[in-house]
């Protein structure tokens, strides 16, 4: 016998919600009402406990650089750029770029803040050093 569909299996899925939030200038991540943990990237089941009982919370935008790298390019392909992993204050880790300073100056442990910006015509969560 089919059981009732969980509320979070109805309507637009978490991917669509993520992109809708971003379009509206909001950096929101998922919060599990069952285990209390947060998760990113968007998923239909809590990655920690499997629950379907989750909602969205505003990310504070505060983060710490967990690791960092510099992508070296030939001059004709554009400037070198940073690729970093950011540990969000809420727990999840995400890939992003730390901007506003030279790529090699980004260091592990650096405090960073999120902003929403465009890269290759895609709206993304990017980071800059805190207080910049």
């Amino acid at each position, binding site marked *: 016998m089919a059981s009732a569909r969980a509320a979070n299996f109805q309507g637009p899925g978490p991917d669509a919600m993520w992109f809708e939030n971003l379009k509206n200038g909001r950096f929101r991540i998922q919060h599990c009402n069952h285990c209390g943990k947060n998760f990113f990237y968007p998923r239909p089941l809590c990655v920690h406990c499997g629950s379907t009982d989750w909602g969205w919370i505003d990310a504070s935008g505060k983060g710490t650089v967990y690791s960092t790298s*510099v*992508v*070296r390019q030939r001059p004709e392909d554009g400037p070198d750029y940073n690729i970093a*992993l950011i540990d969000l204050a809420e727990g999840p880790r995400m890939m992003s770029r730390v901007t506003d300073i030279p790529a090699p100056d980004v260091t592990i442990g650096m405090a960073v803040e999120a902003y929403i910006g465009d*890269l290759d015509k895609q709206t993304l969560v990017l980071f800059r050093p805190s207080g910049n």
Partner: protein
Amino acid sequence: MAHPLRGAVAVVGIGLTPFGELPGRTHLEIMGEAISNALADAGITKDKVDGIFGSNFSDALGALLYAEYFGLKVKVMDSTNIGGSSFNNAMQEAAAALHLGLCDVALIAYGSNARTGTRRGGGPNFGRSFDAPYRPRQPVNSYALAAARHMYQYGTTKEHLAHVAVSARQWAQKNPRAFMREPLTVEDCLKARMVVDPFGVRDCCLVTDGGAAMVVVRADAAKDYPNQPIYLLGAGAASTHNDISQMPDLTVTAVAQAAPRAYAMAGITIEDVDVIEVYDAFTINTILFLEDFGFCKKGEGGPFVAAGTIAPGGAHPLNTNGGGLSCVHPGMYGMFLMIEAVEQLRGVAGDRQVEGAEIALCNGNGGYLSSQVTLVFGTQATL
């Protein structure tokens, strides 16, 4: 009681193509040369093969394509793709399938024209990814992030990384099949063009053409084949993530889970290991795997390799063919490290032979440090 898969199957045929540049040939043609050589080495024709194991980034339904293309009538088809470790994973799956009688003769095969056949530059971003829009230069970027974290936490240096590349090159100089054999120093590595900091080009594996294949059968049938069978003693697999952003700790790989399973199945400890073959897509891999295998403590892999431990003459001969860094790396290296292990255990590795090698420890890596498959192979004497 011994695990039922310990020594249950054996490699009875191996085949390689030349490494490097095989211009004008498709990846399936290269695969075919390796298969032909492996079947000849096993002394059988293709009609005996009833299980096909293989995958490639270009082949969505790989097992079907390979069975059709090579005219195989198969009962077991496996094209599981977990990156370059797929073939090491296939060894575990083939062992189970053979042991249970689902098939009798398994063929594991791979071919690639990554150097001459496809547009250079830009590695794969594997499917859906929230990392990819930031344009990491994959796969190197993921490994560079792991190296940066290891350097931060443990003081690992670029010199340490360079010793991995130099050790691999010293082995390659003993292997006529290896693609890069000219002398390489630590200083050369440090001066090399930067790719993704902290990696320079000598921290990165080759991009070559090449193919490899092996025939695997149940141990009871193995003695009927012309060459010395090399037995699978243990296997273990694990994954920690797909995208590098989801790896819980960039300094600890899934080898820490997979290797103990493989040791337990094989009934060995690392003291029993004579030769090590690992997937050195990037220099940090070797350091991480040595730590996660248990050859040294976490964080001590850099000084461990800098002491010459894994180079020719060292206590732990590793990547004796020259590895992905100096011998061959056509996109997926997993087959080649198993074949080198078999050659070492057969005692046919020529100038690079590790004297008296009876037990080989292998580890295949896939994706972005994502999947790890540890295998232990042994000679008849280890059964």
